[in-house]
């Protein structure tokens, strides 16, 4: 089994010079990111800025064309399985099998991760995301918001150190946006490192300790949320991203 590189082990996520090319198109260019353990970072950016590509690279779904990614000290090129074990991803796609119930989906993914005490863990998560009463219904018959909550549970089934959330509020109603906030902020579950992409500046400031703006594949702005208010962030976003948030 690969050992974590101790020099970087105090960081949850670290990218150095990450680039991603799709043919002639540059989706990510020299992205350098460092996220401390239990730190929460919101990434903002207009459509096509590269947010989803960055999340896919961080989740090891895409290989960077250049540069390196380390998660909890493990290099994604040398120890991809160790990186995957430490990451949970909830994205636009729920990754749920529509023919399987919410519970069956979580059990399946839990088995892939080798989760111990899986049945109990799955029931606990189903209660947490408020799906337990409908746990035996096929996922394809649940509403989009309910599927998104099951997807959040799927991302947490193996208790990852790092949670990647790509616009995780898709389809969630007001009540469950509060649930999302409690997951991100470590109130409903133990705190962990979170990288969240969103178009919502208010949500980015309220949920995360740090915000970054991605534009044309480059990280063009990073600041602590405590040092910002909505107006300052909106002005910076407009100036750097060249678009209204």
């Amino acid at each position: 089994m690969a050992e974590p590189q101790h020099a970087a082990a105090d960081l949850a996520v670290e990218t150095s010079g990450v680039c991603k090319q799709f043919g002639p198109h540059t989706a990510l260019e020299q992205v350098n990111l460092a996220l401390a353990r239990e730190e929460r970072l919101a990434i903002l950016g207009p459509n096509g800025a590269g947010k989803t590509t960055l999340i896919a690279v961080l989740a090891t779904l895409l290989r960077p064309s250049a540069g390196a990614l380390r998660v909890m000290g493990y290099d994604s090129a040398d120890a991809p399985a160790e990186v995957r074990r430490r990451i949970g991803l909830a994205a636009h796609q729920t990754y749920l099998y529509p023919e399987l119930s919410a519970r069956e989906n979580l059990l399946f993914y839990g088995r892939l991760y080798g989760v111990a005490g899986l049945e109990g863990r799955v029931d606990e998560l189903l209660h947490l995301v408020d799906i337990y009463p409908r746990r035996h219904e096929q996922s394809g018959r649940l509403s989009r918001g309910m599927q998104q909550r099951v997807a959040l549970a799927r991302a947490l089934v193996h208790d990852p150190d790092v949670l990647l959330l790509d616009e995780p509020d898709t389809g969630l109603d007001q009540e469950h946006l509060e649930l999302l906030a409690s997951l991100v902020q470590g109130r409903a579950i133990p705190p962990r490192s979170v990288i969240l992409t969103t178009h919502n500046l208010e949500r980015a400031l309220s949920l995360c300790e740090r915000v970054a703006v991605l534009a044309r594949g480059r990280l063009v702005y990073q600041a602590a949320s405590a040092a910002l208010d909505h107006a300052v962030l909106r002005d910076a976003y407009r100036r750097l991203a060249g678009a209204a948030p």
Partner: protein
Amino acid sequence: MSLALRQVLAVVRKDLLVESRARDLLLSMLIFAALSLIIFNLALDLRGAVVREVGPGLLWLTIAFAAMLGMGRAFVREHERGTLGGLLLAPIDRGTLFIGKLLANLLFLFVMEAVALPLFAMLFNLPVLTPLVLLITALGTLGFATLGTLFSAMAAHSRAREALLPLLLLPTTVPVLIGAVKATSNAIAGIGGGPPWLGLLLAFDVIFLTLSYLLFAHAIEE
């Protein structure tokens, strides 16, 4: 039980559960195989020695095309529903994932053959329900399913996925199909499955399994 074995079983179990509810993959293979055999029987009206010569070819043609119909869906379904990403996110060795998907494909093909072989025996009056023909069928199916699983993973990423699988699979499985047809002919004629045909089937199965296991990560990722 090792984690890899539990992951293989999880993938197989999931595929069986999904298919038991979707019923699109197995049903299409079964209907295709049954219709093909009935049409061959009615259209060709084979008798006497000719049926012994042509029959094994018709049987393997039916198995090959029915298998392509089913295996083509194996990864396309994962791709279309976006669940492929969920599989690739998990810390599962890509070779382990390949074994899981291959076993599920094999189970579906064996179910299809459990219907196709007795139907073939009945329509063409040939002794294909013997242990030797069943062994040949199992080996031929393994070779076909191995490359089918690999190529369906590759084709799933392509826009021309429906056309790509047969274009990749048919030329590369020629040795398996020839070996299976010849071995089946010999077994029906009562002169055994080989050598060299049974041995050839076995050798190609080993080669295809090894290559597919090693190449699967490149086929499935990005």
